[in-house]
């Protein structure tokens, strides 16, 4: 089955993508009920423990996160060893790998998931400042996960509305069923490897443009289109040249992606300039796609309006995919914990399409 489409690879209680009804469920909760109500910390607890935390559990988690925001000395040196123009996803992959090195193999645990989650924003913020030639900023323990990330990036506390927007983005992107990066993490965990290994593999998968690597491309395409008035002409012309519309298409949703719906509203509020252009582009793109394939559902995906929200938050576009990783590390680690608890090595089969067995010719006789 190409791409394993429709093949059940795992049982999970972490999240469910109900494509028919356009619902994303975390541990039984519909995403729309969580997105603007819960902190990323609460949702991370939910994904790891299967229930929402009470006040004292949330305080304990926040403290544990805050006290593991510093990088190890090895990770600091390794971060500085990378050239300033390195793709931030490669920085994340490498420095998460260093941060998680171990002497002997350890089993995945919730504390390790917390420590990894705490380190992602630090790695990205430190690298961001280094490439701008600015000094690193120490984390602030009294700030929440989203607020501290922005603080470490910018060196000043962000506006509460911006913090809330980033938090909502992180909650929305925290998990999404058996996507390619989560599946990578589970394949790695299925060999009884460690949590860091699973996360490093997942980062590598998220980097791909068919997965997490697309939100920056949305901005780039919108920049090419330029104005709402130009949308129709540009998109129709692009289609003739077989140019892919960025931010459209999803294997699972038959109706509008519930995350895109929330992000679209946020864009309308926070990034009107983006919204005016993007909503027109969306309208025309969906029209063209519908003309071509009337049988296919509307397919604006989460990346399309993510781009506008992340732009409004003030993140540079090369930080869109890494910030996706900041959210998804909670889901990845929850899946690794679940995989480890009910493990069976993931080892599918392949179908051989090569020649029938034959004998090798000795080196000297080869043409």
């Amino acid at each position, binding site marked *: *089955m*190409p*791409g*394993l489409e429709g*093949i059940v690879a*795992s*049982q*999970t*209680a972490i999240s*469910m993508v109900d494509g028919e009804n356009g*619902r994303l*469920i975390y541990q*039984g909760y*519909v995403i729309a009920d969580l997105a603007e*109500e*819960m902190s990323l910390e*609460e949702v991370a607890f939910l994904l790891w423990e299967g229930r929402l935390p009470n006040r004292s559990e949330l305080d304990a988690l926040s403290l544990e996160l805050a006290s593991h925001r510093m990088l190890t*000395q090895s990770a600091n*040196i*390794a971060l500085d*060893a*990378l*050239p300033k123009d390195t793709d931030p996803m*490669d920085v994340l*992959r490498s420095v998460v*790998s*260093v941060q998680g*090195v171990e002497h*002997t*193999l350890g089993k995945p645990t919730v504390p390790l998931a917390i420590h990894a989650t705490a380190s992602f924003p630090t790695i990205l913020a430190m690298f961001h400042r280094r490439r701008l030639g600015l000094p690193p900023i120490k984390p602030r323990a009294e700030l929440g996960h989203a607020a501290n990330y922005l603080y470490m990036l910018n060196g000043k506390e962000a506006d509460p509305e911006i913090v809330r927007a980033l938090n909502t983005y992180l909650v929305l992107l925290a998990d999404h069923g*058996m996507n390619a990066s989560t*599946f*990578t993490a589970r394949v*790695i965990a*299925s*060999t*009884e*490897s460690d949590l*860091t*290994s699973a996360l490093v*593999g997942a*980062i*590598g998968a998220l*980097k*791909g443009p068919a997965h997490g690597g697309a939100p920056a491309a949305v901005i780039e395409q919108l920049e090419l289109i330029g104005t709402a008035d130009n949308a129709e002409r540009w998109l129709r012309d692009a289609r003739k040249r077989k140019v892919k519309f960025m931010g459209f298409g999803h294997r699972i949703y038959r109706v509008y992606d519930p995350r895109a719906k929330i992000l679209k509203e946020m864009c309308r509020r926070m990034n009107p300039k983006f919204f005016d252009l993007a909503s027109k582009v969306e309208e025309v793109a969906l029209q063209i796609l519908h003309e071509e394939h009337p049988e296919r559902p509307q397919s604006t995906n989460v990346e399309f309006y993510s781009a506008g929200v992340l732009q409004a938050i003030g993140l540079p576009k090369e930080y869109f995919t890494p910030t996706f990783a900041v959210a998804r590390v909670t889901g990845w680690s929850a899946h690794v914990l679940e995989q480890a608890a009910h493990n069976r*090595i*993931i*080892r*599918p089969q*392949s*179908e*051989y*399409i*090569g020649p029938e*067995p034959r*004998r*090798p010719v000795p*080196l000297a006789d*080869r*043409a």
Partner: protein
Amino acid sequence: MAEFSPGLEGVVAAETAVSEVDGANGRLIYRGGYLIEDLVPVVSYEEVAYLLWHGELPNESELDALRQHMAAVRNLNKSARGTLMAIDPATDPMDVLRTVVSAQGASKTLAKPTLEEAIALTAVFPTIVGAAYRRRQGKEPIEPRDDLGHAANLLWMMEGTEPSAEKAHWVDTYLVLLADHGLNASTFAARVVASTGSDLTSCVVGAIAALKGPAHGGATLAARNMLDKIGSAGNAEKWLTEAHDRHERFSGFGHRVYRTYDPRAKILREMAKTAAPQLYETAARTEELALKILHEAHPERPNATNVDFWASVVLTGAGVPKELFTTLFATSRVSGWTAHVLESLSDLRIIRPASRWIGPQPGKKPLQLAKR
């Protein structure tokens, strides 16, 4: 809803011409249609890498070109060197490999995987493994030698002395045998990463991460650890019987795919006689008794010895310390991983399976924090 097959057992996830494990007949076929036992007597690791990448064995000039190419790209770049030196020398060598490969491949822009990169990655593994080993011993890493073949250079970078032809041959044969093996977990991990359009380094880093697991690449070390505990041929019966009574799994036995003796294990078993005669005695007696005990417990199962069991003996004979076993496996398999990634590019489709929901009924309303 589709059937759930735990571990995707029996599910075909890809078409491939890189290798085929014919478990029913105990055959491993490498790209081009060659049986592993036919290749071993006539090819070096470099030839097998060429075969896996190109689909055909190289002629003399093609092989020379590949050898020269590999020898020329054995050095770590500045990022990788800095990262290597930042890591505590006592770190698990697989973590060193995962991290330094990641740093070596860190780049400015996303590039599609190429053969050139596959060659460079394959060439640099021995450098990292050698450096990790030397640093564990408190020694400085040494520079690669461009006049040595892949296997000999690997031993050189570990020991700092030129290995005997025999040792280099044992390691080379091991590398040939382990270079590919169908859609195992690490190769599958590489293909899943590749399916998103990611870069080759990301694929290989993901594969290293998967190989690290004791249920996959870590099995060779587990087999050697078991042999260490058994200690001698004379102790095998007592140890195995007691271990079996404690419901302990015997390391180095059983495989999901082979229904008969693993063809690689057969070759390594023969080689083990000369490579490590003393350990061979213990291992042979252990194998005999373990198979007997397993057969008595489960007469219906084809409880064959797997490649890890005999690989642990041969690598020991070649002077490879056991904490490096999994990194040697990676040093071999990287040619297969990269061949699979390159193959998958011709028809790239994101690998995104489904999952079955076993959580609470959707739609419950979250309680406010204060009410929880």
